[in-house]
């Protein structure tokens, strides 16, 4: 006959393998036996639930934003500006270049209106921005055609290779911080409509 009552049993019960007094109580108490068996099956279910969720991860855009935040926090990217500030001749050169660019832009503005850049076909893959409730900010569309570009402009910029992960590309983690050229199509409302990576 076990001296242990139900409360003592549950307050001190070890994990999977029961010692003498606990095993003794379980043999004599049908209620605790049923409860123990139920816990075992529940644990199996929880293990299955954990296994099913094992591959669930934060969307890739979180990493992208955090890397940006990390760079801001550590002043990465500001080096060039600070070097310019330290070397006055570099600043003078930059101002001269800017002035020349502005003059050319003003001359061009008097001529025909500039046409939007027509993205090259073939080599690169184009994605359209998906505003649906999908987890990823960008979704693949098969028909992000030039017809959509009637009232749009294309802006060319550099983004970290990790941004490609948000679009489902396999990116070598070692190269995630490298920069890659991309063309972003902006609609008449200024919203990004599609992204094309030039250097995949």
């Amino acid at each position, binding site marked *: 006959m076990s001296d242990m009552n139900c409360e003592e049993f549950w307050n001190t019960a070890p994990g999977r393998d029961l010692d003498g007094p606990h095993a003794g109580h379980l043999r004599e108490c049908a209620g605790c036996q049923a*409860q123990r068996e139920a816990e075992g099956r529940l644990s199996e279910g929880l293990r299955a639930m954990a296994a099913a*969720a*094992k591959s669930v*991860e*934060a969307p890739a855009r*979180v*990493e992208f934003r955090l890397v940006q935040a990390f*760079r801001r926090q550590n002043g*990465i990217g500001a080096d060039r500006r600070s070097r310019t500030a330290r070397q006055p001749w570099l600043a003078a050169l930059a101002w001269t270049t800017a002035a020349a660019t502005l003059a050319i832009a003003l001359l061009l503005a008097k001529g025909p209106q500039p046409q939007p850049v027509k993205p090259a076909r073939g080599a690169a893959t184009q994605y359209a921005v998906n505003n649906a409730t999908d987890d990823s900010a960008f979704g693949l569309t098969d028909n992000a055609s030039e017809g959509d570009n009637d009232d749009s402009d294309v802006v060319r910029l550099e983004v970290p290779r990790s941004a490609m992960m948000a679009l489902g590309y396999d990116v070598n983690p070692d190269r995630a911080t490298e920069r890659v050229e991309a063309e972003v199509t902006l609609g008449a409302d200024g919203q990004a409509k599609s992204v094309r990576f030039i250097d995949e």
Partner: protein
Amino acid sequence: MTPAARDEDDDLLLAIRSGDEQAFVSLYRKRQGSIYRFALHMTGEPSLAEDVTQDVFLALIRDEWSYDPERGALASYLFGIARKLVLRSLERGRSDVTLESAEQPSWRQLAVNPDPLGDLTRKEGIESLRRAVLTLPRRYREVVVLCDLEEVDYADAARILGCPVGTVRSRLHRARALLTEKLAQERTPRPALETWKTVRCLT
């Protein structure tokens, strides 16, 4: 958590503090999954889980919660921040659902239904279990998510929750009892007599 994994995390953190971006990316990739899943299991909201994950690592970048290796592993520290953020957002959104009989789980259902747990390892069983976990009161839900789903050991869970190991054990036991009751209710839906209220007596 093994001492080696702990040392590796601490080394990565040192490199992060010196501005090593690759170290940050490595640590993020190593730890983001469990933090995201913890927040997801706690809230049931992918967008909230995403925000929490982002805020946890932002806090790490900015060293807002000053990590002290003497007080526990980095993984526990990250879970601790995630927990605070989850609780904060749950309080804001009041999306916490509690069981009516949360404090007094009953095992009587087991006698009524010969197989209240069915096969919880199948897809529908897992889905029922996921719903049941979400309906647990917060203090029970967090121990189940940490200990049963993310396999955090009791000592680390106690550090994360700021309570003794014994409390983790008892909450876990109570949580499992509540889960079983919840699953039994789902599979044999019937109104509990004690929830009926007399409106008017006709005789």
